[in-house]
């Protein structure tokens, strides 16, 4: 087991070498199962505050990343992340703010069918995952966001979603009344 300053160094090195964000449990596997990793992370957070490299926590997993305000220096030569379609962005937002949510519920909010490719793109990006079936007739599959979603969009937890509290207070995240939505438009051709 590593302690004090040498533990801080060890955690720093492990996070620095890691190819993916790590949980405290992951870090312990390398620096010792009894180590005060939380304390070391707090120390590192402080040390890196305001620097060109930052330590961040995303969905319980930790990683170093470049400071956001330096984006303009780093964008050179990097291929732009694939642009999400408008449907993709809306679908992702609906999943993030309502999760777990079924495809029918997403369709009810958007008022149009979710094209096949839309969910595929989000699944492939590793931003959403199947989150079990809802115990209602038809047992529809639901979707929720992933830790990768939090990392990508720089959210420590889902509670950091912009405007989440206001939307909730305004009742705009209440469960979707599928019965009513279906009464409005009974359309629903197959895609």
């Amino acid at each position, binding site marked *: 087991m590593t302690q004090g300053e040498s533990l801080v160094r060890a955690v720093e090195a*492990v996070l*620095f*070498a*890691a*190819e993916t964000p790590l949980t405290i449990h992951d870090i312990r596997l*390398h620096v010792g199962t009894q180590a005060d990793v939380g304390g070391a992370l707090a120390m590192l957070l402080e040390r890196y505050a305001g620097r060109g490299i930052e330590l961040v926590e995303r969905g319980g997993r930790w*990683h*170093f*990343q*470049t*400071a*956001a305000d330096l*984006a303009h220096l*780093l*964008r050179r030569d*990097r291929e*732009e*992340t694939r642009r*999400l379609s*408008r*449907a993709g*962005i*809306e679908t*992702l*937002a*609906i999943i*993030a*703010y309502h999760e777990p949510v079924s495809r029918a519920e997403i369709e009810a*909010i*958007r*008022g*149009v069918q979710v094209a096949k490719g839309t969910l595929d793109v989000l699944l492939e990006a590793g931003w959403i995952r199947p989150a079990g079936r809802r115990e209602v007739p038809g047992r529809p599959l639901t979707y929720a966001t992933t830790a990768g979603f939090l*990392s*990508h*969009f*720089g*959210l420590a937890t889902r509670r950091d*979603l*912009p*405007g989440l509290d206001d*939307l909730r207070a*305004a*009742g*705009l995240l209440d469960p979707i*009344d599928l019965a*009513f*939505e279906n009464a*409005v*438009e*009974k*359309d629903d*051709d197959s895609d």
Partner: protein
Amino acid sequence: MTAADPDTLTLDLDGWEGPLDLLLALARNQKVDLKVISILALVEQYLAFLDQARSLKLEVAADYLVMAAWLAYLKSALLLPRNPEETPSPEDMALRLQRRLERLNAMREAGARLVARDRLGRDVFLRGTPEGLRTVRHATWEAEIYDLIAAYGRISARSRPVMHVVAHRDVMTLDEALARVSELIGMRVDWATIESLVPSSAIGDYRKSAVASSFVAVLELAKQGRAELRQVSPFAPLYVRAAS
């Protein structure tokens, strides 16, 4: 409310993501908070928009028409004297439609805010060349002494010399058949079936063996040019006679 000016709204319905999207765009044109939007005005704009489309003989997708029919119904319900029996009330339906637009609008804005965040791989970056963490797996192999012994027993049993003894031996050998057939066809002038060359006393397994051996013997004699064979069709009786 002049927002329904068709010139400001393209009539190309492909540009809209369905009726709700169109309704939301119309609602935003009212330039008021969605919470205090006039549903009645909105309904009129939507219906006017579709009328315009149809007067231009544009094809309007079915879901737009379904929404139009529902909105026309909502409009009349809102305007006509209220029937207290009716549930949900027209006001309730209008409120729900307004909430629905609000929710879609909220999600649209949330999505826009989400993608504008500092995104990993676009605005902020992970380390370019991480050394990587390695988990080295060591296999410890396991086997019991019983497995080892049983395996050897199995191999020994498999490779032990085995003597085969055929207990039942009721056959006519090929040599026997050859001698017998060549003698018999030498004595006959006419075609003879194979069966007629088999001893009439032969029965059961011995008869089968005799037929098989005689057949092979006939083939052998034909090959040597000492016999001729004739068969009119497949599976028809096979005739044999001495070569002339």
